[in-house]
């Protein structure tokens, strides 16, 4: 198997890629919103403490009082630093933080919008603002929240998330392979059904019910191909059987008469007679072979008309002139206008000639044959009608098949009408036959271009 083109591999990888991208996007989004959420909580707390410090400061009548009261208010707050600087230095710092001085230095430009700052290797979220003290001094207060817990939490979350992401992607690949394999099951079944079909079992078909609609077209096309194969295979077998049969008959008589003649010595006249009779059989064999080859060529689409302008009325006239010799007691008539087609003169002559011979053979003494050449719907139409017994329906259906002889006693090869049809088809035309009352009409339609 070529893995590069395996649908299973490609689909599974696509699933994994898709899952990774979606999970990663989701993770980034969640991380971001957790971060935002914490920043918001911090801001709320920081601004609350800022307001508290301001309130306490405005009530205090001295720096000592401010420090005491603010210290009381902030009891139990971990990780929160509140520092107040007056005009003459630090007034308050809670807890007694090593970072307070550094924070003050770093937070010089900070206002009431929370800002992330790093001071003394620790990360803080900080707000700051002025404070009007109760004793009239203008002080500055900085409120900071140590956020290393938050960042630790988020980092941990992120690490877990990436691990989960890898696990999920791997799981997706595995599940994807299983799902795709399952999804491909109908394809394997079709393949199995197809592999059961051999030359001897061309009648088998892949069952169409139960096939997913996506594969329905494929199965239909495959079955149609089988039908065509079966048909041409059958035709080929029939063809071989026909050839064998048709060649065996003259060969048998050749062999018989030659053997019997050689059995004892005879006079020269007898030998001459034998050779002449053999010659007739050889001629028959040659003609059958030539006709079969012609039909085989037609079957393979190799019958290519050598096109020229052909005047159909004149052509029919010559044919009637020739074959008319066989129709002594038949009323033979030619009607119509001089229609021209672009076709192979020799082939068309042969096709129409074969139809004419067929008509002559099937017209009773005293009957009639009418050949009509006309133009209908931009097509040339040659119709050959003859009086006689109407054709049975099954004869009409099979009449153009090779070796079908309506009259078992006829000495023709049974290939004339098949050849006529091949020629007409090679010209892109149609040939048809119908029985009308006590007459039979063959018609050829040829495109005029």
């Amino acid at each position, binding site marked *: 198997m070529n893995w590069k083109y395996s649908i299973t591999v490609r689909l599974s990888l696509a699933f994994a890629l898709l899952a990774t991208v979606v999970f990663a996007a989701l993770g980034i989004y969640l991380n971001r919103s957790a971060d935002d959420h914490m920043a918001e909580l911090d801001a709320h707390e920081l601004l609350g403490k800022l307001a508290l410090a301001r309130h306490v400061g405005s009530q205090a009548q001295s720096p000592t009082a401010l420090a005491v009261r603010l210290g009381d208010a902030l009891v139990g707050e971990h990780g929160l630093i509140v520092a107040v600087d007056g005009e003459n230095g630090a007034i308050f710092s809670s807890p007694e933080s090593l970072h307070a001085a550094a924070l003050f230095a770093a937070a010089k430009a900070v206002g009431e919008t929370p800002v992330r700052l790093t001071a003394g290797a620790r990360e803080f979220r900080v707000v700051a603002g002025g404070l009007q003290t109760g004793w009239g001094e203008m002080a500055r207060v900085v409120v900071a929240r140590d956020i290393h817990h938050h960042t630790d939490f988020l980092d941990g979350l992120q690490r877990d998330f990436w691990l989960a992401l890898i696990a999920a992607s791997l799981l997706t690949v595995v599940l994807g392979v299983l799902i795709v394999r399952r999804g491909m099951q109908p394809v394997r079944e079709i393949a199995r059904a197809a592999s059961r079909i051999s030359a001897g079992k061309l009648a088998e078909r892949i069952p169409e019910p139960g096939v997913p609609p996506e594969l329905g077209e494929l199965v239909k096309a495959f079955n149609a191909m089988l039908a065509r194969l079966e048909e041409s295979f059958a035709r080929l077998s029939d063809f071989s059987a026909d050839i064998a049969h048709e060649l065996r008959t003259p060969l048998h008589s050749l062999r018989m008469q030659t053997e019997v003649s050689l059995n004892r010595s005879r006079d020269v006249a007898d030998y001459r*007679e034998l*050779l*002449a*009779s*053999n*010659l*007739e059989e*050889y*001629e028959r064999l*040659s*003609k059958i072979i*030539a006709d079969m*080859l*012609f039909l085989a060529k037609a079957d393979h689409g190799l019958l*290519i008309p*050598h096109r020229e302008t052909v005047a159909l009325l004149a052509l029919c006239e*010559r*044919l009637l*002139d*020739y*074959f008319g*010799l*066989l129709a002594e007691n038949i009323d033979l008539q030619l009607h119509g206008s001089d229609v021209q087609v672009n076709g192979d003169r*020799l082939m068309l*002559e*042969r096709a129409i*000639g*074969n139809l004419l*011979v067929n008509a002559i053979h099937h017209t009773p003494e005293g009957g009639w044959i009418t050949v009509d050449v006309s133009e209908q719907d931009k097509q040339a139409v040659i119709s050959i009608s003859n009086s006689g017994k109407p054709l049975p329906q099954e004869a009409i259906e099979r009449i153009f098949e090779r070796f079908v002889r309506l009259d078992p006693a006829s*000495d*023709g*090869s049974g290939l*004339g009408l098949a050849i006529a049809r091949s020629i007409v088809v090679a010209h892109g035309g149609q040939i048809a036959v119908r029985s009308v009352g006590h007459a039979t009409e063959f018609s050829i339609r040829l495109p005029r271009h």
Partner: protein
Amino acid sequence: MPLGQNATMKILIVEDEAKTGDYLRLGLNEAGFTADLVRNGVDGMHEGLAGDYDLLILDVNLPGLDGWQVLKALRAAGRELPVLFLTARDQVEDRVKGLELGADDYLVKPFAFSELLARVRTLLRRGRVKEAERLALADLELDVSKRRATRAGRRIDLTAKEFALLELFLRRPGEVLSRSFIASQVWDMNFESDTNVVEVAIRRLRAKVDDDFTPKLIHTLRGMGYVLELR
């Protein structure tokens, strides 16, 4: 039955199939020609270039040098003798190719020997003999320009095709004419059908030309065709 007029005509046959070649030579020799046979393309080319032949019968499928190459070499060397090629394949391309390379006629195997003989005679006659206006055999006479036929001085009424048929016979006395050759010459019908049209036509012609007269002039050679001659 050798014909004096052919005695000097030399024909070279290039054919690798042993039986076909042998019988072609025998048949042509018995028809009054001097026929030589070579069995491959190289010999065919040398003989064709060196020998003084009036006609070449050339098989297309040959060992060594094929028929096309022989034909090309001969034409390139300026040899203008008529060439009749034989092909086993009834392919339009084959025909076209042969005629383009300068062949004068072709026959598709299997063919009737009488057909070959008729073609050979046509090729050898081409451009040599002025077509005679008056033809005759024994007491049968044909005036082509006046479209009149008489036997023993008596006028015979013939249809146009019957006249053409009789003219064909009289222009080729003693030659066996196959049915397909007659159909193609008189009616321009170039395909074989399982019919006996020519037989019917000959019967009618005989009824007018031979039935009331002796000696009989039109003879049937079973399996081969017809011949007009005084026996």
